[in-house]
């Protein structure tokens, strides 16, 4: 289905606006003046380490917490002080919170009955949800007679049944094993696109966030560090903290120096002079970080072949391999540079039999292009 794969339109109407929201627990500011816009039909992920305030933010959207300051506008209406049962928002709970005394059908129908929906319509909606989430045949079961994956789908069906304006998912897949989690992530994306609903997911698993979300908000200490698409987040992190939180990265501190054509030379203590692509915003600080993802660092015995374009500006660092971890698809190396610093490199195992692989204590040249580096000022 081609139309299902369409990217959400850039001009999608604004659904949710969070304005300078603060939530304090005693002296601790769990959410500290956070603002965020979420568009209709978007799959948005809140990503962050535990204790960063992402769950508190989600609970404020659901109505279980009330902001101490700021506004939460849903369709232009401030819902910050509204009780949970009055909001057109539903939540899928981390441990599903299925009612243990009710059957699957009754769990799904619970929210519909509270809406005062007529019985025949409730039955139709429940049947629809059972089919949508592949729960047919399980309607008479009680939650403790379901597998983890089935419980997860019932919880989702129950939250979706009322067709909320906004669906909140609190670590929805945390209790599933890895394989099931991956297939469920894809199901979740497909479901969201098919229903055209707005999902906000909270997760501490960056792979999950990157897989499912259109945009990711990275949170730390109650604030948003960066809001961006998964690709931007990974390739253009806004800060050193984001760069280090999302994926692996090599970071070298140094002073920005001369400019050569479109290049900026940063002189670092650990890796000497590194040529980096001229950042879009001119560098203002006297100390910056140069960040390179491990998969952008290539290893070779003699360095890059000289007929490459701009060969003169390619960064070359020499060192000794200290650690080799074979991970199947990729092999991850640690190279001890002559300065003593550690550089990480991961290379795809593109051939089954690789006569060119490196081993510990081997001397190698690590190289990467200026375009693969990111300059971070904070």
């Amino acid at each position: 289905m081609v139309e299902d794969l369409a990217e959400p339109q850039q001009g999608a109407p604004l659904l949710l606006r969070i304005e300078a929201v603060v939530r304090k627990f005693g002296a601790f500011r769990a959410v500290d003046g956070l603002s965020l816009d979420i568009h209709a039909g978007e799959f948005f992920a809140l990503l962050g380490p535990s204790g960063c305030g992402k769950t508190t933010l989600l609970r404020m959207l659901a109505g279980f917490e009330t902001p101490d300051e700021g506004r939460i506008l849903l369709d232009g209406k401030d819902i910050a002080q509204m009780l949970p049962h009055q909001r057109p928002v539903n939540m899928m709970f981390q441990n599903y919170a299925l009612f243990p005394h009710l059957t699957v059908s009754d769990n799904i129908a619970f929210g519909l009955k509270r809406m005062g929906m007529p019985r025949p319509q409730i039955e139709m909606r429940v049947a629809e949800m059972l089919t949508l989430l592949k729960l047919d045949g399980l309607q008479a079961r009680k939650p403790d007679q379901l597998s983890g994956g089935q419980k997860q789908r019932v919880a989702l069906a129950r939250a979706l049944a009322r067709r909320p304006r906004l669906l909140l998912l609190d670590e929805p897949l945390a209790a599933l094993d890895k394989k099931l989690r991956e297939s469920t992530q894809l199901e979740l994306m497909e479901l969201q696109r098919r229903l055209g609903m707005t999902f906000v997911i909270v997760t501490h698993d960056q792979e999950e966030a990157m897989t499912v979300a259109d945009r990711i908000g990275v949170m730390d200490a109650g604030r948003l560090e960066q809001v961006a698409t998964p690709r931007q987040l990974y390739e253009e992190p806004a800060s050193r903290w984001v760069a280090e939180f999302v994926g692996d990265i090599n970071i070298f501190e140094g002073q920005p120096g001369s400019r050569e054509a479109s290049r900026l030379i940063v002189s670092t203590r650990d890796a000497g002079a590194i040529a980096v692509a001229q950042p879009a915003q001119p560098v203002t600080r006297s100390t910056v970080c140069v960040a390179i993802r491990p998969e952008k660092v290539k290893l070779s015995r003699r360095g890059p072949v000289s007929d490459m374009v701009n060969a003169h500006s390619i960064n070359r660092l020499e060192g000794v391999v200290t650690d080799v971890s074979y991970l199947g698809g990729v092999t991850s190396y640690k190279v001890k540079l002559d300065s003593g610093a550690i550089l990480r490199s991961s290379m795809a195992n593109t051939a089954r039999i690789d006569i060119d692989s490196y081993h510990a204590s081997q001397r190698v040249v690590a190289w990467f292009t200026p375009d693969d580096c990111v300059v971070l000022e904070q």
Partner: protein
Amino acid sequence: MTARRIFTRPARLAVIIPYAWMLLFFLVPFAFVLKISLSQPAIAQPPYSPVFDLAQGLATLKAAAELSLDNFRLLLTDSLYIFSYLRSVAVAALSTSILLLIGYPVAYGMARLPQRWQAVAMMLVIVPFWTSFLIRVYAWINILQHDGLLNKMLLALHVISQPMVWLSTDAAMYLGMVYSYLPFMILPLYASLAKMDSALLEAAADLGASRLQTFWLVTFPLSLPGAIAGVLLCFIPIVGEFVVPDLLAGSDSLMIGQTLWLEFFSNKDWPVASAAAVVLLLVLVVPLVFYDRLQRRQLEAAR
């Protein structure tokens, strides 16, 4: 294989001990009572003529043919016993209802307290157990009697102009019952309410249930096992209760425990008293078995 390894020798012993206990201290004495209930009263020591005596060997069998159900027949025909049973069940039912009405909100409030206050509340519920039950009931006599604390207080406050009769009334008895059994109602209810996942209440609110709806649709049904445990823990001993009605209630109508006592100690009619005890046990066992059956059927239906 692993299943067998779980039941190591000490484990097997641990399983046997409660059964041995039940056999020794429940089934064997019950067999004695049953035997006495089937015999005839006699002016002797002990005051009944044994129906079977193992020492007599084969003659026992012959004697067994003379088993007498006379005592049971008497229980069914004499209105004294029937009224005693009915009164016991009625008193237990009303007392248990009052206990549930008082115990539920208390347990609910306890479960909602902050964690460190829950322990304090629990202590307050348990503390009365540190004093002898009998002494506590006597204390109520002190409070309720003609020149007791209650009358003195009401007189001093000019609520009443003359001392009122509190003691030896049904009201005093119900007061004593509720007072004595309240912890047995609160504790199982508290246990079931305290372990309830607060996420369930949030889920109900999230799905549009008001607070009252959340209580009736989620909290209450999930606390039912605790409520049933509390009801059984109160109802069963109250049916056979002797001390509270004997000390606090009037003497015009008796509960079965008092009737039993009279038969044993005043009338010295052990066989009738034993028969009354056997019937009492049946009265209590039947609803338990019924409840157990119901619960099992629900479990099976759910599979």
